[in-house]
């Protein structure tokens, strides 16, 4: 069975937020929820300061801190290593949100329209998005990135990988030593974010320069 993983090349990434926005669109996430958050940061001091974007996704950890604390068994790992939340079992205790060291889980109370001042019903797109969201996710429960599991099953790539103008994101099988992700990690010094958290992420980063 493949173990799905990500490689995000920080030297290719120029911080455009396409991944964040295309994730929102592909997963119909409600207002305020972004599973592919981009975190820009400045380091160093003038004139040698640096700015670098850190694009995040759920790290689909092998030893997920979120799963460990889940009291209901709602959090599971599928055969590809994707960490999933069962909307029917999750009781919304938020233990996983606090436990996840990567800030990958979010919850939302209700569907908030993006156009709060408008009168009348939701526009057809928001109505559609709401329906889609409710089909797979919901309110009060923990929600998170699943590496676009359904798209991948259809043979497509995760939305953020497909949109990235700089081709900074690669998706594939970490178990296969010949896969593009494995080769990138080997050849270009791939590293996990904060390995000391001990969760063994499936998301690897390539150094910014």
């Amino acid at each position, binding site marked *: 069975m493949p173990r799905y993983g990500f490689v995000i090349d920080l030297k290719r990434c120029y911080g455009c*937020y396409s991944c964040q926005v295309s994730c*929102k669109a592909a997963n119909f996430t409600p207002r305020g929820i972004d599973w592919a958050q981009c975190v820009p940061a400045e380091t160093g001091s003038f*004139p040698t300061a640096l*700015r670098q974007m850190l694009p995040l996704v759920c790290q689909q950890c092998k030893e997920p801190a979120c799963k460990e604390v889940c009291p209901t068994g709602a959090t599971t790992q599928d055969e590809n290593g994707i960490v999933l939340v069962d909307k029917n079992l999750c009781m919304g205790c938020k233990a996983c949100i606090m436990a996840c060291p990567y800030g990958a889980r979010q919850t939302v109370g209700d569907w908030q329209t993006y156009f709060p001042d408008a009168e009348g019903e939701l526009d057809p797109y928001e109505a559609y998005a709401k329906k889609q969201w409710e089909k797979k996710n919901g309110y009060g429960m923990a929600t998170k990135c699943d590496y676009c599991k359904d798209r991948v099953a259809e043979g497509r790539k995760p*939305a953020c990988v497909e*949109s990235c*103008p700089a081709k900074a994101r690669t998706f594939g099988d970490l178990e296969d030593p010949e896969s593009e992700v494995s080769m990138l990690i080997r050849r270009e010094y791939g590293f996990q974010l904060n390995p000391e958290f001990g969760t063994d992420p499936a998301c690897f980063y390539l150094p910014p320069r």
Partner: protein
Amino acid sequence: MGDEMATTTTVQEPNVKEDVWINTSCGGCYAQCGIRAHRVDGVIVELEGNPETPAGSGRICAKGTAQLMTLYDRYRVNYPVKRTNPEKGVGVDPKWERISWEEAYETIFEKFRNMKDPRGTYFQATTVQTSEIRFAVPAFMKAWGFKNYWVSGGGLWCGNGAHFMNGIMHAAWSIIPDWNYNKYTLYFGCSKGHGAGHAALQSAQWAADARARGMKAVVFDPFLSTQASKAHEWVPIRVGTDGAVALGMINVILNELGIWDAPYLKLKTNAPYLIRPDQHYKRDPETNKPLIWDPKAGRAKTFDDPTIEDYALEGTFEVDGTTCTPAFQLLKEHVKENYPLEKAEKISSVPAATIRRIATEFAEAAEIGRTITIDGKEIPLRPAAAIFFRGSQGHVNSGWNCLEIDLLNHIVGAADVPGGSMGHGPPVSFGHPDTGKPETVPYACPDGLMTVKGWVYDHKPYPLREPAPPQRLDLQDLYPCSVYNAFTICTPEWEKYRKDFNIDYEPEIMINFGSNSVMTMANAEGVTENFLKQFDFVLSFNIYQNEFTEAVADIVLPDASFLERYTPCVTFPSTFCHPTGMDHWVWQIRQPVVEPLHERRDFNEVMLEIAKGLGVQDKYFQAINDLIPVRYGGEMDEEYKLDPSGDYSWQDISDRVLKDRLGPDKGLEALKKTGLEKWPTKVEEMYWRWFTPVRVPIYFEFFLESGKKLQKLLSSFGREDMADYRFYTPLAEWFPCPSHEEEDPTFDLWAFSWRPSFHTQSSTQNNPWLDEVSVNDPFVYLMQINATTGKSKGLKDNDMVWVENPDGNKIKGPVKLVEGMHPEHIGIAGCHGHWARGTPISKGKGQFFDDLINPDLAHTDSLTQGSDACAKVKIYKVAGR
């Protein structure tokens, strides 16, 4: 609408009746990438890049994806409305009242019919919908008989100096590096390949490939921009001083290193042309052609004499009793004498040693003498480029700044050859293999200098326009190099200017397509009071009620967005869409993925209706016949020309354009299925420089004559003061902005604006997804100031401050103390701080930088009439905060 547009059908759920993907073109910015839209039961639910096109290569940016929210935005204008509050002005509530389309048309027809003089019409259009403006705007101008035209953004946000100089030097609208072969690029105040709309997504990918390959990038910018943050080296520089640094580098390269590409300079530029002591060309008395010196023959010959064995670049020569010097020698001496590195350092704050080092790296990286064979053709390889855009050109020295940076490319022969700086969109096109259209190849003027064949606007960049008594309300026709002209119309002097130049008609009707000029030309009050309020009737096509419509529009028509309309050609003229390098040409269309919602109607359709209603459709059709060969290269077949006495819909016109350019089987119905037509590029097109027998100037002899003519003309109207004639000099000079000469030490910072990669001019801030991104980003809604500078002023993050220019204009906002900022600057994201009622999402977020800009004569480039977009300011805490 319907099945004919379906490209794939993947019915997923039993209760879903329709599930299709439709190919079209994004309209989120002027890159106009090819995209696919996913429609389920009549609703667009997904947008993604179309992998079939080189214009985007299957990718989509944040702005593009977020256009879904603009299509379905519940704050959009969905019905025609009229203003019921007679008061106009910034911030006024127009008290819109919904009207029917019939009433709107009747009012419009009546206003036009009652005009005192049709010449008093003014078309103002957005550059975001750049393909939409190519038909209706010029066609209506010709049909109704007026010449007044303004592209919003043209004043502050577009490229006066850049487009003009790129037109002269590269036959193109812009320049970008050839990332595929480049090893070293100098970027001056631009973000190409890092969010700029210049073939945005393919460029981003190629730039990333180049980075991964080890391409070295050096970025000159007052702040640590997106581009600078990805570079090997960020060189903090004072705004507007790029040209001085470039001239210093040229000095190093020519006089210290002694490096130049002699064959390029001899054969592809006017460097060998002999110059007389009076600065003019030495011409052959018989043919009037400029002369060069052939050192082998020991005599002067005309520049194109087939017997020339060699060209002298240096030395002085006696020709018929006149002492003549090759232009190159003059340039070399000029930079040595006038641009020593100490001077460049004093102007720019970049240390002389840094300028010298970077100049050396650049000249060496060009690898002069190397060649490469592509498709069996051996051509020079020059893997170094110097690139610029907004930052360099938004100053008094607009035109010259751009040229000075570009001269670096021409000295080392790195222009339109692999690895160098490339005209963009590609200026040479042999056309579709079936039709030979669109065809455009630059050609030489009698002096041997490059002249573009087709151009986006009526006047080509070269030969320069003859200064003439003005017919336009903005007096643009006075000036020989002007692309846009803001300083006349935006000042209280406008009426006086018109009087002084005997303009015998008044501004009467403005038609505005999509622009928000109250926020994109200069300070809002000035633009509104001095310019926009002078019109009796303002008709506006918009998708939102914005600062412009609320201030001055009388009728607002609900425009369709790009997902609701037909546009027959978005990738030609190829100003911003085609990647530069060996790939494919692509002709993309835009088609409605959904019928216009509510009562929205497409601008091009409505303008056609207006022309018909006014009884000028014959001239409208004729104008379209006339403009197609200019904009889309190549004569029209008789068969597809519009019959002026005929009757056509916008779709009929689109169909004819497509068949004429691409072939009889590639009309609208065919293109609706694919969304595009593509064919391979040729090496002679992409790397055209050595295949095209043209030269470009390094010595601008023709400015002398133009400047004199301009002076004579302006003097004849008693307004000699309306230009600084020192700008009309043949050798590149750096001229300061008022901000560089401010003497009051309390104005101790330069304010400048910048653009986040996820916004397009003033059109995207109200998009809720992009607003979410902006809120999330620490640099967009705050004003960035160098941390040390900020602390020395007692400031900390989020302190509210006033930013005030010497004229007393001021803006207010919270500061963010950062390290990535030159200590003498404050950087503000442009086009933010909206206040319109119709844009509640963006309202009050960020700052409105343009309020600091006064586009008077002193803040205008005397060469290109570009506006200076920097200001010297003082900042101080808002009382009580």
